[in-house]
């Protein structure tokens, strides 16, 4: 049976009306009452209008929202809720470039039909009809880089794992998302869970993996539950387990919960966590691709990274390269928050200008109304608002010094905000999240705090000394956390001292 027929048969099995009303429930909207709306709609809508839930579309600033095509306005009289078809929402979303978040908020997250209807799993079908090598070549051609923060070329990582001879090979989906200010992987899992599954399966097929682990942040309950449900559905419908889509491809996805801490997202720490060890990074070499989970070759990819794969397979690598930057094609999901009028989740082409991004999607009238922008969380730092004009999003130090995009957190800081407090907060975060294994990070981050004057008000701050210490921490630390823990201080030195 070929995979297209397989898809047709599943789709025809599910041939019934789309749910007329979708309530968008994600972690953020849940916190502002989405569930209550869902419950009351279920109660008051007549039986012939079906209600279901989806994930959020990313326009968090007007959450909670519902998505409906039928006119049900009169049922909503006393409920304050926005329709995702409203222009505030449409404008926000339509001016983005959506690959990963395509159809987020407009298709059910409780069932698979909505996803299938929007060409879901046809990429996997196509992939399974090609050889794994062809997929790796295609992804190499697309220039896709990882979206977990390090922007490492996906095909290079894959090939490195493929070059190790081993009976077992593992794919670990990194859904830890512990970088403060970032909440995009949660949105992806909550709104397009099946896309993540499809992407992971394509990756596993291409890299001849024998197992897939999906490692979800311990606090992301909603993401966990939604993924678990989606996995069950996939299993029941033949998209997971043995003989996937009627082919010989057989693999399982095991879902597990982390237990907190930014450093859990660091890939080797994550492996230790899965193996039941202390939450500490491993020494490198060996790299996970050579010796990862259970000392077998292991590929670790971010949620967002994997969700690009179906699109690339369906549209081709050339189409993909038309989007974004020549060196880093495609889009990036930015988590936009802080002192902006319209915080949310926005997917924009790589290379987008930072100032434009904040102004356009944050609805900030004048960039100079801000005192600065915190970018990329505690591993990065703050820039002055004026610097934003010359910076664009992409891999590595976007300012060539100490500020990185990381997983894409952008927090606007108001004029009232003392940037020093922000730098201290970010440094404190690093100090608290330090796993405690290596001296420069464990001691150095504490020392930074002490030198920045927590508890010792009034003493002038020795910025030169702080700068030297930050350099030592970055240069000497064992893992990515410590190696970037000096950055907030260094960025302050650059832009504010």
């Amino acid at each position, binding site marked *: 049976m070929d995979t297209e027929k397989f898809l047709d048969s599943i789709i025809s099995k599910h041939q019934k009306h789309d749910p007329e009303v979708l309530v968008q429930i994600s972690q953020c909207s849940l916190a502002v009452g989405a569930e209550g709306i869902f419950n009351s709609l279920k109660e008051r809508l007549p039986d012939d209008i079906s209600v279901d839930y989806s994930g959020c579309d990313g326009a968090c600033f007007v959450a909670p929202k519902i998505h409906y095509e039928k006119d049900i306005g009169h049922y909503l009289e006393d409920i304050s809720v926005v329709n995702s078809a409203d222009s505030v929402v449409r404008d926000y979303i339509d001016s983005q470039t959506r690959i990963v978040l395509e159809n987020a908020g407009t298709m059910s997250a409780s069932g698979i039909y909505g996803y299938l209807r929007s060409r879901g799993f046809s990429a996997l079908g196509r992939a399974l009809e090609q050889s794994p090598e062809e997929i790796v070549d295609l992804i190499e051609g697309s220039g896709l880089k990882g979206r977990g923060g390090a922007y490492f070329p996906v095909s290079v990582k894959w090939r490195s794992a493929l070059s190790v001879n081993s009976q077992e090979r593992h794919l670990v989906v990194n859904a830890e998302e512990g970088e*403060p200010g970032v909440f995009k992987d949660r949105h992806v899992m909550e709104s397009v869970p099946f896309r993540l599954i499809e992407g992971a399966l394509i990756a596993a097929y291409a890299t001849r993996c024998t197992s897939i682990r999906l490692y979800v942040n311990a606090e992301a309950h909603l993401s966990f539950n939604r993924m678990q449900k989606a996995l069950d559905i996939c299993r029941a419908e033949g998209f997971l387990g043995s003989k996937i889509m009627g082919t010989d491809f057989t693999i399982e996805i095991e879902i597990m919960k982390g237990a907190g801490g930014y450093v859990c997202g660091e890939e080797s720490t994550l492996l230790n966590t899965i193996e039941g060890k202390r939450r500490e990074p491993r020494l490198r070499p060996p790299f996970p691709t050579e010796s990862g989970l259970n000392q077998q070759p292991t590929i670790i990819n971010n949620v967002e990274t994997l969700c690009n794969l179906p699109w690339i397979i369906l549209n081709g690598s050339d189409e993909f390269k038309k989007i974004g930057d020549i060196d880093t094609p495609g889009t990036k999901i930015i988590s936009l928050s802080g002192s902006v009028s319209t915080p949310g989740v926005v997917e924009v082409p790589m290379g987008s200008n930072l100032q434009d991004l904040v102004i356009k999607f944050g609805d900030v009238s004048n960039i100079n109304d801000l005192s600065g922008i915190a970018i990329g969380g505690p591993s990065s730092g703050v820039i002055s608002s004026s610097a934003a004009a010359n910076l664009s999003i992409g891999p590595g130090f976007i300012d060539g010094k100490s500020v990185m995009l990381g997983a894409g957190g952008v927090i606007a*800081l108001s004029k009232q905000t003392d940037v020093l407090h922000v730098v201290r907060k970010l440094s404190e975060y690093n100090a608290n999240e330090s796993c405690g294994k290596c001296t420069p990070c464990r001691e150095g981050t504490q020392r930074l705090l002490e030198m920045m004057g927590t508890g010792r008000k009034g003493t002038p701050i020795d910025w030169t000394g702080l700068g030297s210490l930050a350099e030592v921490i970055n240069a000497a630390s064992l893992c990515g956390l410590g190696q970037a823990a000096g950055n907030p201080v260094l960025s302050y030195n650059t832009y504010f001292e």
Partner: protein
Amino acid sequence: MASAGEERKRRNELRRELIDKFPRDRSSLLPALHYLEETFSFLPDWGIEVLGWHLGVPPSEVYGAATSYTELSLSIPSHKTVIVCDGVACREKGAIQILEFLKEKNIDGVEIKTTDCAFMCSVAPAVSVGHTWYGRQVPDNSLAELIEG
């Protein structure tokens, strides 16, 4: 204090549960710790010990791992916990004011904690009450009622 007999009984019960649910492999450690925490709302010392036996991992190493994870708790939560996110984004939206407000209110039987990010910055500021998160909070009586209720 449980008597020697009761103590052994509850250890044996837990042990049987663990045997049913988790393979005797170190990789079961974190899932099993989650299970303990779900069952007891914290990680009791005897539970860690039983888990260690079941997995063939010395209790000190189970404890070493458990204490390395920031989200596992090793003592009984004595109060109702309210967590106020005082991350960068939430501070932009008034987290500090909320903290000050709650400190002043000093609601009985409530322990106020903070977190560095609750990962819902787009609906900042965020406050958690008993395991539920609420976004866009303001320091006023409705928040106090939410906590008291």
